[in-house]
């Protein structure tokens, strides 16, 4: 695989828990919004208005600046038919594009396989967080899972001298040999992939310096790790990270603004950092959540709902509104949720085909309507 510094890069930020669409991109001009949100509605004078119809939550000022530059696309009413209100099931559907049955192949795992079919770079896909999201899991596709870039690697707790020796031994005992059986072979290649990935990634913090001071939040630290890996030019094409806490059944007035101010500041810092390193123009950042929330609030928060919003940010992005804000009218709702106007598999297809130049159909399982944000 030939990688150039300008190969398109995708950063995915998963907003886990089900972000409340209606309090994020607020349909303030619709009087029904006030009716539905008597307890947690955002006062109109605080809303950051985008136009005569909708505005952003007051905690999202940094994203408004990006919006004004035409680099923030808002995808309205995104989801899939017969939305599942289970976090896990719904997230699974987003991860595997299998709304009918249990999927085992992550959509980004498949994309990484297509980007690097010969496994030439074990750091083609990098997850920053704990574990590995199913979206990136595909048998035989190595993905680096980085909890903390500064301490990432095998035997990370060891003193440097011991560690060098242990890694040397590890590489030796995990090397391929004849007649070991499929599972041992699989463990062997996985172990070597893990080691090589760590080896590649460890240079990132060494090469990195930046004048940008990120905000103090967990998501800012994760995006900073991603920026370090990206500007080090290690050939990573797909980054993934997540922020939990969007499951605002209660105390939404307290929690939701904190989450969005963390996200907005971190995203702005991230792109500022990339620009400082002249490494922003081949990056888009996509944010999604597993579902929106109920139209009507429950007193102090909102319960699991249907259609939500996704966002795409980057120099190459055609900013503004894409798809349509679902109607708030009771007769247009689906069981108390906003209707889904755009299938997320079409959204993925747009990214895969227009940005990553990968054939989307086999990955998302068919042809879906695409949008013009790229």
């Amino acid at each position, binding site marked *: 695989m030939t990688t150039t510094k300008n190969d398109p890069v995708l950063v995915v930020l998963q907003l886990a828990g089900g972000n409340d669409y209606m309090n994020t991109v607020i349909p303030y001009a619709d009087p029904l919004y006030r009716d539905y949100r008597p307890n947690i509605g955002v006062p109109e004078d605080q809303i950051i208005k985008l136009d005569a119809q909708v505005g952003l939550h007051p905690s999202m000022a940094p994203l408004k600046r990006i919006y004004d530059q035409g680099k923030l696309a808002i995808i309205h009413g995104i989801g899939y038919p017969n939305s599942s209100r289970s976090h*896990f099931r719904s997230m699974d559907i987003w991860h595997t594009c299998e709304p009918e049955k249990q999927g085992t192949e992550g959509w980004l795992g498949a994309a990484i396989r297509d980007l690097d079919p010969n496994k030439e770079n074990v750091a083609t896909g990098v997850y920053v967080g704990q574990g590995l999201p*199913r979206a990136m899991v595909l048998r035989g596709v190595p993905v680096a899972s980085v909890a903390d870039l500064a301490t990432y690697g095998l035997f990370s707790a060891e003193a440097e001298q011991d560690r060098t020796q242990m890694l040397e031994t590890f590489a030796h005992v995990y090397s391929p040999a004849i007649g070991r059986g499929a599972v041992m072979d699989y463990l062997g290649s996985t172990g070597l992939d893990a080691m090589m990935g760590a080896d590649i990634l460890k240079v990132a913090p060494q090469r990195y310096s930046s004048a940008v001071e990120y905000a103090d939040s967990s998501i800012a630290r994760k995006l900073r790790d991603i920026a370090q890996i990206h500007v080090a030019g290690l050939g990573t094409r797909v980054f993934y990270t997540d922020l939990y806490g969007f499951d605002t059944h209660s105390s939404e007035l307290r929690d939701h603004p904190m989450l969005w101010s963390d996200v907005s500041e971190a995203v702005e810092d991230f792109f500022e950092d990339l620009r400082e390193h002249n490494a922003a123009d081949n990056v888009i950042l996509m944010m999604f959540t597993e579902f929106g929330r109920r139209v009507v609030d429950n007193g102090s928060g909102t319960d699991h709902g249907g259609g939500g919003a996704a966002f795409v940010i980057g120099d190459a992005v055609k900013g503004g509104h894409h798809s349509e804000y679902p109607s708030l009218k009771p007769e247009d709702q689906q069981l108390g949720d906003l209707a889904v106007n755009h299938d997320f598999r079409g959204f993925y297809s747009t990214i895969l085909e227009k940005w990553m130049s990968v054939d989307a159909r086999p990955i998302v399982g068919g042809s879906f309507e695409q949008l013009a944000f790229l």
Partner: protein
Amino acid sequence: MAHENIALIAHLMRRAGFGATREELEAYAAKGYEATVEELLNPEAQEAVDRLDLFRYHPGMFKPGTQAGEGSAEWLFYMINTKRHLEEKMTVFWHQIFATGVSKVDHYHELNYMIDLFREQGLGNYRDLLMAVAKNPAMIYWLDQNENRARSINENWGRELLELFSMGVGNYTEDDVRDAARAFTGWTIASHIPRIPYQRNDWTFEYRPGDHDDGEKTFLGHTGQFNGEEIIDIIVQQPACHRFIARHLYSFFVADEVQVPAWQITPPKDSQAIDILAAALSDSGLEMKAVMRTLFNSDFFKDARFLKVRSPAEVVAGTLRLTGGQEFAGPFFLPLARETGFMGQDLLNPASVEGWHTGEEWVNSGSLMTRINFMCERLGDTSLPGIRDIVDRLRVQGDLSPEAFVDSCLDLLGPLTVEDGTRQKFIDQTSLAGTLLWHSPDAEQRVSSMVKSIVATREFQFA
């Protein structure tokens, strides 16, 4: 021979429990294999874990709500401290089948009650267990059984009962699913205001006759005005049910199989073993204790050493049992409950209604690194009581040549056999420092390094 006995008992304890210390292995070996199996099958003779020991220092664990990832701390406390090895291993087995998760149930304590049920009845009668699961509030909510009403059937529970909990796809029709669901209408949960403020409502099973569809049903060839009990009684008579549970037992206790959804198209690895286990189920009237006795005493079990990739629960509980030092749940105990999740098995939050994909699918580059780092950090710590014991056992062997040092460490950590090339690499490596001399100041450091090298091997990832 003595060594062979230790190796066989170690195999038994890795599968029927979460591994054992050398001291425990020696005691079991002195008792003998079959007597050890009987002890495992009769847990009442051993003292139970006192969960109040945990709640005393972590009162939030009494009813943990949805506290991120830590709601399984109580279960981990049991896994680490129980003297009833098999009783606790059965809870993991049943959780893998009756996979129920906090992602939807949203009450860790209701899930913990379900684990209690597995602890109490996991070695009992399968029919009784299935019946208790059908009435378990967490399960009812998990599979929308509380939405299954006489006038609006919700098939979720009816379907999974047949597909995931008893028989597997291909052994029933859609009409069977429908009528099974109808038979369970009226089985629901009642919600109770909690006595402690800001708690989630407690749930209990409730049968509402007025919401039960009392009409005639046809299920697996039987016709009648069935209620849920009759459906379960018909299911447990089916040979397909016995084979399904047998295959789960084989996959969990004997050797890794293909994933459950592939069972319909992939024959068992060892069909004779499945026949034996299925017959044990049917002959004993579904008594799990009798089936487990058959399993552990069979040659196909004894010969199946290191044929399973350790699950994250086995990695974490096994490591902490071996190191010791977690009998008291100190301030850093709760975060340990998240470790299995970092390795791909978030207990009480399974990947799906089908539980987890097991075997080699536990391993990817991220999870492999996580488990190796977790084990190295702890098992290489010679200040922990269990590792001190290993050092002491090496020390009484006197100064050790590189070969003897490597072999003794492999023995004390398993006994484990590694490939010749791997063993030779360890010998070459440690030869650079020469014979292990106990008066030398770096002796313990060398033990620590050797232990870490061994637990990082591929062979050590198997149980």
